[in-house]
């Protein structure tokens, strides 16, 4: 036994076991997220259940679980129930029903059952009854109706998009211009200029913009009139629903689809998720604004944290006289990494938003007050707060890198007549670059997954506009933004429709993992390239 201990084998087993446990946990987490997240987009068949009491339900099976039978004697057969997404929230009140297996008398998969994704009220399940144009019926029955729907849906969608474009882009531009003029007038007013030619000119400009409203409204009304087609769907339970074609995002008949068609739909749904806007209080549609916000925030954070952390580390390691004070600073920096992130959030609100942002508003945007511009949460303040949160990581990594550079390299440079600065700039900085990138990788991973401090420094459930758009100065750092981590929290725990939102939690989590992975891979590739160039002398 003694010899066994001394041989070192137990230690190998111990280390291997620890690694295996870590891998298992990570793999389990990723698998859970993958299975739940990726399965969500697969068009599963629509099942119609005829219950023992003669009632019918139709929808997609989302879950099957054992019914707990507390106190039942051992040997009692297990009983199961299934969760069915029946949709039709406007008709039934709830999207999901639970059905006991025992109550199902018969089940079938009607091929003409149609699933319609709507812009409002969630999915609609049923059978097409007819397609109408105004009061006139233009197609009757499931088959003819389906063909007409397929033919006319693209047109209706295009019209809908055009209306949206006019509403957001063109009317948005008018609103934006008017707001700018209003602020200019107010700015003049603050300077004591309430009349005069300049104000008159601005007011006149305002009138010009105002005059363009009716024209656009008329165009929208015209477009609305042009698309009058509606679809009548008969749902289970003798309910009928008439909805305009413009309300339909997509319609498909999963029971009639082959594997290829399903795969195509699967891919297009993933694309919609990644590139689309959220609908129905984030439980449907896509998460593009959140992806955009997350990546942009991480990038701004990197831009802030890298120079700060690197400069601080250089001072600590290269210039400061090593002593108790520097040691104390180092310990303080390391401990900063252990401060709860929400504390950083509170600091961000107090210092960045109210103090710095408020100051900027008073100095540069007095005309907009009391509406704050920078004096409220925004992507800049969230990024800076996260930079503060992650700066210890960059400092520690850079310092370690600096300590690892052989002193001989600095001496060699100095002995050649280089000054301390030239040595730092031309020899030390390139050699420490891989370590800086390591720090940045860790910082980015931490920042991308952080939620708590963001909730109070600028993340919102639904941001009306992206932080980048076509209006000068194009990059709007004061804007609120969406974030994948917060999106997970919001969809998973703040959603009015938890069952419908649950798959979104997994898909969003998966996406966040992927983004962190991609950002990290990019940084790691860059670091490896630098390492090849700037490997230390091993001799």
């Amino acid at each position, binding site marked *: 036994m003694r010899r066994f201990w001394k041989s070192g084998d137990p230690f190998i087993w111990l280390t291997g076991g620890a690694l295996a446990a870590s891998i298992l946990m990570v793999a389990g987490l990723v698998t859970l997220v993958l299975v739940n997240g990726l399965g969500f987009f697969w068009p599963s068949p629509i099942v119609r259940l005829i219950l023992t009491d003669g009632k019918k339900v139709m929808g997609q099976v989302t879950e099957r679980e054992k019914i707990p039978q507390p106190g039942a004697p051992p040997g009692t057969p297990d009983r199961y129930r299934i969760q069915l997404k029946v949709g039709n929230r406007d008709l039934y009140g709830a999207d999901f029903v639970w059905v006991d297996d025992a109550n199902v008398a018969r089940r079938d998969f009607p091929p003409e059952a149609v699933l319609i994704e709507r812009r409002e009220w969630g999915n609609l399940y049923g059978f097409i009854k007819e397609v109408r144009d105004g009061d006139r019926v233009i197609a009757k029955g499931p088959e003819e109706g389906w063909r007409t729907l397929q033919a006319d849906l693209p047109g209706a969608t295009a019209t809908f998009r055009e209306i949206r474009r006019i509403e957001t882009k063109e009317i948005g531009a008018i609103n934006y211009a008017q707001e700018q003029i209003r602020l200019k007038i107010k700015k003049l007013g603050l300077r004591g200029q309430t009349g005069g030619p300049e104000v008159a000119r601005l007011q006149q400009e305002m009138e010009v913009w105002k005059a363009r409203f009716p024209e656009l409204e008329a165009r929208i009304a015209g477009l609305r009139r042009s698309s009058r087609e509606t679809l009548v769907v008969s749902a289970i339970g003798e309910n009928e629903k008439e909805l305009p074609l413009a309300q339909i995002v997509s319609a498909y008949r999963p029971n009639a689809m082959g594997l290829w068609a399903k795969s195509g739909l699967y891919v297009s749904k993933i694309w919609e998720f990644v590139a689309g806007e959220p609908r129905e209080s984030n439980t449907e549609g896509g998460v593009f604004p959140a992806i955009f916000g997350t990546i942009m925030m991480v990038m701004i954070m990197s831009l802030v944290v890298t120079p700060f952390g690197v400069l601080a580390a250089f001072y600590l390691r290269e210039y400061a*006289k090593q002593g108790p004070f520097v040691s104390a600073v180092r310990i303080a920096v390391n401990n900063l990494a252990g401060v709860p992130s929400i504390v950083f959030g509170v600091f961000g609100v107090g210092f960045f938003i109210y103090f710095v942002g408020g100051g900027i508003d008073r100095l540069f945007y007095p005309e907009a007050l009391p509406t704050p511009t920078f004096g409220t949460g925004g992507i800049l303040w969230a990024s800076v707060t996260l930079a503060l949160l992650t700066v210890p990581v960059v400092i520690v990594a850079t310092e370690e890198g600096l300590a690892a550079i*052989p002193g*001989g*390299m600095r*001496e*060699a*440079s*100095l*002995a*050649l*007549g*280089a*000054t301390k600065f*030239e040595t730092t700039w*031309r*020899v030390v900085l*390139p*050699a420490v670059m891989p370590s800086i990138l390591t720090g940045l990788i860790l910082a980015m991973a931490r920042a991308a997954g952080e939620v708590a401090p963001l909730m109070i420094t600028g993340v919102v459930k639904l941001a009306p506009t992206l932080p980048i758009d076509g209006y000068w100065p194009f990059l709007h750092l004061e804007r609120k933004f969406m974030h994948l981590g917060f999106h997970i929290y919001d969809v998973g725990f703040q959603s009015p429709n938890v069952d419908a939102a649950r798959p979104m939690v997994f898909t969003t989590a998966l996406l966040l993992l992927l983004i962190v992975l991609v950002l990290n891979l990019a940084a790691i590739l860059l670091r490896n390239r630098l390492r090849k*160039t*700037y*490997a*230390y*002398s*091993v*001799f």
Partner: protein
Amino acid sequence: MAARAGMAVEGQKNSTSAGDSRSGVTGLGTVPRDRQGEDSTGETRMIMKPMIEIRKLGLKYGEKVALEDISLDIPKQQITAFIGPSGCGKSTLLRCLNRLNDLIDGVTITGTIRIAGVDINDPQVEIPELRKRIGMVFQKSNPFPKAIYENVAYGPRIQGVSGRSDLDGIVEKSLRAAALWDEVHDRLHESALSLSGGQQQRLCIARALAVEPEVLLMDEPCSALDPIATAKIEELMADLKSQYTIVIVTHNMQQAARVSDYTAFLYLGALIEYDVTKQLFVKPSKKQTEDYITGRFG
């Protein structure tokens, strides 16, 4: 011969008895007197104008005395070796010559060092400027993790040489001077770290030569090299002697005997004996020196 040896001992006594060398009749410090007026014209010039004059040099790390009352003259265009057991201060003395000890906190230096007549510890002296004139090669070869070309071009670039053809010329000249050109001329843009240990050390020499120094300090340049690489470096030193004043620290006595013209033996921070190499090894005047070179301690 015997008479000359006696005179050498005499001169040596001057140097080691504190301070009197400064007022010595020759005013040449500890340069062995017996060499004066010898047939070699080079040596005469050397005596007329020592390259480095060290007077009453003392150095303390905080309270710890590392060097005490060192006075010696290092002749121009000769190889001077510092030998002595580990911790005797020979490297510290070498690093005083390009003020590399300035980097260490708490170092106090007393006495004067003149290189080509200029007091290097004068506050007026620009240290980078000084270091350009005093090249150094370290014990551990320390090429920058850059291309071979960039290593050699580093010093000239720092000095503001930027023309491609100028740099090409300097790189080739320096690598040739360091006897490395033939081995690396077809892979100048590969990493310096791909070279062997001996090649790396010669690259460091080339790098030092590229800034055209007057003095070359070598701090145990061969201690990490195999005998073949060592032989190459020694050969190189003999070639470089005609242009540079070389000071080498070594604890390999055979090496000192092989390559140097003058040898100084240091022990516990003090200069024990300084003489023509042959003289010091054949007939040392001090018991300690003899004990050391015969291997009784150290």
